[in-house]
């Protein structure tokens, strides 16, 4: 095999490189394309014949039709609510003059949902507003029902609005404050400047945030499982019930397949519509940047009031989780105890050990794979690199339920049987969550001129030495971002992995879910606290590790 450099000269093929490239193709073929193909086969081939019989059978049920509609309604509501909340927070941080401590505090609150298991807000919300709920008792509202649309909506909005916040902060930061100054010097009042300049310029960002949240809510499994109840079925939980409750793998696959259509539409909109709408800012030296000016005093006060309320509510929920883990039976027997932690470290110890092992192995393999794929796709002219980039991100883009079910189908029968092994969970985590590493590496490499690497080669360093001594240090921030993300989501994932756990390999998130279904909220809270602590510790260690390895590396903001 020969390949061409950018200048068109034929270069000698690098055997090691080619072997690596083929290895990645085999991995992706096996753990991305193959399961997906098996899923499609199961959905579209009933008794060996191509057709829509399975899909039409599943969606002839009124309950499943309702689930489809509910999923879309919920996703839209979460998209609207989360984007609005995210915009408010982002506007406050970028435009309103706030003391440093307040800004730090706000960004800390934003990070909390990222490092928590997906059930956290659901558990806390149940403990506060569910049966025996703390607030309900305080306010003397005996017959309030949090389960259903409302509870799911609140929990998902609180879980996902930080995504909107991060997107919109970047967008608002990029808007030149001189534009707002210019508007005001031409006579516009602050609210007029906001409506005619700031808001129109953030529309692409708002659309993007909405689509991100819409997609996240659509694929969310943990929250509706706890909060939705029987009256508000959604697709992800229906697929799970179909498989675990009715042992109908084919039906479950068909229901999850229905998720793909809206998910695909969202993905396409994001990539081909929103990305082309970002305004090209006129270049040139910016000169003095304006100080944050806010949006007029009254609006500012209202905004800050809403933000304070939401922030306090989030802190309240997290304190409840912590408090809840220290009492005997939440709402019934509130005496303090360490029993729940003892429970975690005895009965639950296997889940802790298994989860950490799986997360560590996945982080090492996935972190490496993410950097290598990102590097090869961007710096080497190898065959099919566009296709490979697309396929490598596929498992990440697809809803977790779909990927989980496809794995369960693909690796329980046929040539490769992995059911019940650690390998299947690791393979899923790696192939699904290395995407952030790939993207971060791609983004960083696009900003680094290839001449830096050429200079190293010119000074007669080998390709491997160049990669190790020049490229890796330059993309260290991307590697840190990628590995941290990998570890966090490997620890907290549930929507896909729940279909793959077994007696031999269990996961913390699944244990939390079991506790919730058995109404052991105190134990669930203790598990959650331990999980959050492990994740926080790991993030700190990973950062420390890279700072020691590459002292020049300056840590990035946020996650």
């Amino acid at each position, binding site marked *: 095999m020969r390949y061409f450099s950018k200048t068109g000269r034929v270069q000698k093929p690098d055997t090691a490189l080619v072997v690596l490239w083929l290895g990645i193709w085999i991995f992706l073929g096996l753990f991305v394309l193959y399961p997906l193909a098996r899923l499609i086969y199961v959905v579209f081939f009933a008794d060996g014949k191509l057709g829509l019989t399975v899909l039409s059978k599943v969606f002839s049920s009124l309950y499943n039709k309702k689930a489809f509609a509910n999923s879309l309604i919920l996703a839209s509501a979460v998209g609207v609510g989360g984007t609005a909340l995210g915009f408010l927070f982002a506007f406050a941080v970028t435009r309103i003059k706030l003391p440093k401590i307040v800004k730090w505090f706000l960004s800390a609150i934003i990070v909390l949902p990222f490092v928590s298991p997906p059930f956290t807000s659901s558990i806390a919300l149940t403990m506060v507003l569910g049966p025996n709920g703390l607030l309900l008792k305080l306010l003397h509202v005996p017959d309030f029902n949090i389960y259903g649309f409302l509870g799911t909506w609140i929990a998902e909005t609180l879980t996902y609005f930080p995504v909107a916040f991060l997107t919109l902060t970047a967008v608002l930061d990029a808007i030149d404050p*001189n534009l707002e*100054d210019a508007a005001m*010097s*031409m*006579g516009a009042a602050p609210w007029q400047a906001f409506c005619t300049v700031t808001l129109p310029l953030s529309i692409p960002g708002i659309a993007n945030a909405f689509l991100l949240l819409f997609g996240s809510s659509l694929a969310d499994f943990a929250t509706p499982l706890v909060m939705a109840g029987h009256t508000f079925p959604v697709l992800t939980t229906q697929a799970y019930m179909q498989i675990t409750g009715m042992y109908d793998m084919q039906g479950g696959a068909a229901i999850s397949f229905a998720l793909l259509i809206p998910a695909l539409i969202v993905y396409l909109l994001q990539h081909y519509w929103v990305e082309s709408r970002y305004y090209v800012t*006129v270049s040139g030296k910016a000169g*003095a940047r304006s100080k944050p000016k806010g949006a007029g005093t009254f609006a500012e006060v209202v905004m800050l009031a809403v933000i304070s309320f939401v922030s306090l509510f989030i802190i309240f929920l997290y304190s409840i989780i912590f408090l809840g883990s220290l009492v005997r039976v939440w709402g019934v027997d509130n005496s303090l105890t360490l029993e729940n932690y003892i429970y975690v470290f005895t009965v639950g110890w296997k889940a802790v050990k298994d989860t950490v092992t799986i997360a560590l192995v996945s982080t090492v393999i996935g972190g490496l794979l993410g950097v290598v794929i990102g590097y090869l796709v961007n710096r080497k002219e190898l065959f099919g690199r566009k296709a490979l980039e697309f396929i490598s991100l596929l498992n990440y883009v697809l809803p977790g339920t779909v990927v989980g079910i496809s794995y369960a189908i693909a690796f329980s029968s046929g040539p490769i049987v992995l059911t019940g092994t650690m390998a299947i969970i690791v393979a899923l985590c790696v192939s699904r969550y290395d995407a952030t590493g790939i993207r971060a590496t791609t983004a960083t490499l696009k900003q680094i001129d290839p001449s830096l690497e050429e200079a190293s080669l010119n000074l007669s360093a080998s390709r491997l030495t160049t990669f190790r001594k020049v490229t890796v240090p330059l993309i260290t921030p991307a590697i840190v971002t990628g590995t941290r993300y990998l570890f966090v989501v490997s620890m907290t994932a549930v929507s896909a992995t729940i279909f793959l756990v077994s007696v031999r390999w269990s996961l913390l998130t699944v244990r939390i879910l079991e506790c919730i279904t058995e109404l052991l909220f105190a134990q669930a809270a203790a598990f959650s606290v331990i999980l959050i602590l492990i994740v926080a510790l790991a993030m700190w260690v990973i950062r420390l590790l890279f700072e020691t390895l590459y002292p020049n590396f300056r840590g990035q903001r946020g996650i």
Partner: protein
Amino acid sequence: MSVPICLKHLTKIFHSGEAAFKAVDDINLQIDAGELITLLGPSGCGKTTILRMIAGFETPTEGQVLIDKQDITAVAANKRNIGFVFQNYALFPHMTVFDNIAYGLKIRKLPTSEIAKRVAEVLEMVSLNGIEDRFPNQLSGGEQQRVALARVLVINPQVLLMDEPLSNLDAKLRIYMRSEIRTLQKRLGITCIYVTHDQKEALAIADRIAVLNEGKVEQIATPFELYTNPASLFVADFIGQANILKGKLTSIDGKFAKVLIGEITVIAQVDEKNSKFRVGDEVALVIRPESIEICHLDDGTLKGQVASSVFLGDEIEYVVKLMIGDAVRVIEPYRRDAHLWREGENVGLHVNPLDVKLLPIKR
């Protein structure tokens, strides 16, 4: 209708954490109606901050801004009727040229026909017709600059503030645009404050120049006065090129003083306003490179050796190392019969005492 601007004790202190930074330090300025004044100084001297306080983007820590004798210090930016041209133009990227220019008129709720008429007029004024429907990113740098100017002129501002408006243009366009701006400003008779760090631009465009250093005004004067009679060493050094020699004042006699540099006495002119000198003071002498004449060794008061000679076409630039240690720069115009001094040649230097300015070392 032109109006005067007055700055009284204008002060701005920026706080970042514990540290406080005095960006603007007790500035007093009187700008006449219809005048174009330039704020000139190195980066960080506070010139942009002054402009932003006049526009209302920054609140002064102390002091007042008076426009047309009205104190507007507490008036919000959007109520001031001031035109501000930004360094990066700050054109709205999501609006066409027409919408950009019409923005201020729409805010003032003018009828559509009136808006269209005035936009057309102002586009004519800056010679930009036929690009109304384009977006800012489809314009060249020069066109963007004109749109930015048109956008503020259309609202008939009382005052025009310009923050390094030409710094993003290439050299040729810069020279062309600065004369366009000057012509337009004179025609409209609008009072204008123009911030720049380019001394040539300031000399070319301004009625008066205020030289700023570390938040303070060093000197405010016409371009001619500033160049020929700098009030401080900073101004002498910042405007044009200057040779600065340090020595001791040995005697003062009316308009002239004798200064001992090494073992040589140089006669210098004393500015009557600057008569606080006393015999024995350490002082500085400022001599412009073009006022020094190179002559044969025995004819000059100062003696030295030609260290370098650079032929620049219209002039020749020499560096002469003086016997007393300092090196001076000399610029001689090139003429067919000009004598060219060789590097290494021992020469004398001749200076008219009227071209030697006596200045204190520290103010």
